[in-house]
């Protein structure tokens, strides 16, 4: 635990969390002014070279424009073929290893005793002065305890209870879409549906649900963390706002519960009623970390798969015909969408000991990046991996949820949301046409879309 985190924990009972964060922001500004702060990388987009023109050691897949410029496929294919465990020594995020083949990624993911998830799972560090702690970036046994405290909220048994509510909210969104005229699918469908879901899970004020999406976008997009565009002066105030909103939500719930109200089935109530997390409010970096994890985890991922599925069916139109003639393929297609999109490009680890992996010697302390996006296109593990095939055999055997103790906790919720979306879409629309090119997120982590214009046509209902 860092000294600043310790200080926050000690003062948490008397100083509101949002003030602590403001103080941390001010401290960073001061360090900046006197020249003591770590340098934040700046990213300015320019066209990236064709990968065939580069020496292998110069390939840098941490570039946040690789996805937007549509070059990630060729860059990773070359690494998979020529140097599947590849070292880049000069990236803006420091030196790091890239693991790009399916089987090697599975190996790293499984072996948490060799590869630590601490202190963070993104390529770069968190913004200085605000080291939030979350169980996705903790090793066992602490990880296991914190995860167990919240995993029931998305356990399949409870999802069954939530299915009709999710369906109803999906129907409302789809019934209000404009027909036969272009609109932005990302904002009107993907973001709106994810915001509704998050507000439900957190029991967050429903009318303020889009705030959750904005906060999540800011949380995952600092330049030093993922190569994103959020500056520190935007980042810190947002974290302070999150801290204030959720401290209040927490204290309100605690008060209502103390007054005899039955605890609800939302994330805050679950944490309040678990031995390991009931005092989380007094550990601000953990409190924020766990909330950030659940919000970001439920936001970028499902949202971009909601968009990616429509894009994939437009790129492979014969698959849309196949789907319409056999809607029973939806569950299998959902897995294929999640593979094809791979909404989070990677997870990062740090070697705990020297490890030999596929001919390379990774040294203790080195950063190791498991590129799920590459493994999901590995020809050695998946037939015709660039094709989107809704009845693909073994579609569930993809890397997008990760493997091992950090495997995605919300996987079943994500699959259910996507399944319901497609069931309801097929009920209503005969065509969903993408108009022009979508716009892509700037990030080496989130493989997302900022907008995608589409036009839908009603089914002829007889």
């Amino acid at each position, binding site marked *: 635990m860092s000294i600043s985190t310790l200080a926050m924990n000690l003062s948490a009972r008397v100083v509101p969390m949002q003030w602590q964060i403001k103080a941390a922001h001010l401290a960073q500004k001061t360090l900046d002014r006197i020249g003591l702060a770590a340098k934040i990388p700046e990213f300015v987009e320019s066209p990236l070279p064709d990968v065939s023109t580069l020496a292998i050691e110069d390939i840098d897949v941490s570039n946040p424009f690789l996805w937007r410029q549509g070059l990630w496929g060729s860059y990773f294919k070359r690494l998979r073929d020529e140097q599947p465990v590849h070292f880049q020594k000069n990236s803006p995020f420091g030196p790091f290893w890239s693991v790009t083949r399916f089987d090697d990624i599975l190996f790293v993911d*499984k072996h948490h005793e060799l590869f630590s998830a601490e202190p963070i799972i993104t390529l770069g560090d968190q913004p200085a002065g605000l080291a939030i702690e979350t169980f996705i970036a903790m090793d*066992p046994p602490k990880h296991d305890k914190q995860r167990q405290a919240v995993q029931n909220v998305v356990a*399949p048994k409870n999802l069954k209870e939530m299915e009709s509510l999710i369906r109803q909210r999906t129907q409302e969104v789809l019934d209000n879409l404009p027909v036969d005229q272009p609109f932005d699918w990302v904002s009107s469908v993907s973001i709106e549906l994810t915001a509704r879901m998050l507000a439900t899970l957190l029991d967050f004020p429903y009318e303020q649900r889009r705030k959750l999406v904005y906060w999540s976008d800011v949380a995952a997009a600092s330049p030093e963390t993922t190569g994103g565009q959020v500056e520190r002066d935007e980042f810190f105030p947002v974290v302070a706002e999150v801290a204030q909103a959720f401290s209040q939500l927490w204290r309100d719930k605690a008060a209502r519960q103390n007054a005899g109200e039955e605890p609800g089935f939302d994330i805050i109530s679950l944490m309040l009623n678990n031995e390991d997390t009931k005092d989380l409010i007094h550990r601000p970096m953990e409190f924020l970390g766990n909330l950030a994890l659940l919000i970001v985890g439920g936001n970028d991922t499902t949202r971009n798969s909601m968009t990616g599925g429509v894009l994939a069916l437009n790129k492979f139109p014969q698959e849309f015909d196949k789907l319409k003639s056999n809607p029973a393929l939806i569950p299998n297609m959902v897995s294929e969408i999640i593979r094809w999109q791979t909404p989070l490009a990677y997870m990062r680890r740090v070697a705990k000991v020297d490890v030999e992996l596929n001919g390379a010697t990774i040294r203790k302390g080195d950063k190791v990046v498991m590129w799920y996006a590459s493994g999901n296109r590995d020809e050695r593990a998946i037939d015709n991996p660039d094709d989107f095939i809704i009845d693909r055999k073994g579609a569930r*055997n993809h890397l997008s*949820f990760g493997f091992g*103790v950090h*495997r995605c906790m919300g996987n079943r919720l994500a699959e259910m949301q996507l399944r319901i979306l497609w069931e309801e879409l097929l009920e209503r629309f005969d065509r969903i046409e993408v108009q022009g090119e979508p716009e892509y997120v700037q990030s080496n982590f989130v493989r997302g879309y900022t907008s995608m214009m589409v036009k839908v046509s009603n089914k002829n209902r007889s």
Partner: protein
Amino acid sequence: MGRMTFIEHDGTRHEVEIEADKSLMQHAADNMVPGIDADCGGECACGTCHVIVDHQWFAKTGAINGNEKQMLEMTPEGAPTSRLACQIEVTDALDGLVVHLPEFQM
């Protein structure tokens, strides 16, 4: 060759014939037993081939290693005789084995 029985959560029974050199998970997959996803393909890394072994058979299914234990602890549907089917090596000694499938895989 012997036989084993998978019982779905709704009571549907599936009898399968024992084949040499296959895990219990592979027996389920090759015989189209529903409710075993096996997302990681038998690597003890996803927890989606969870089965609950009939009490009398539990001791015969072999030891549980640390990795399997850890994955099982993450399963909300866990029970005292839970196992991951990919970690159960099937031999003729399991002739007559009965396992129950949870309502949901994690």
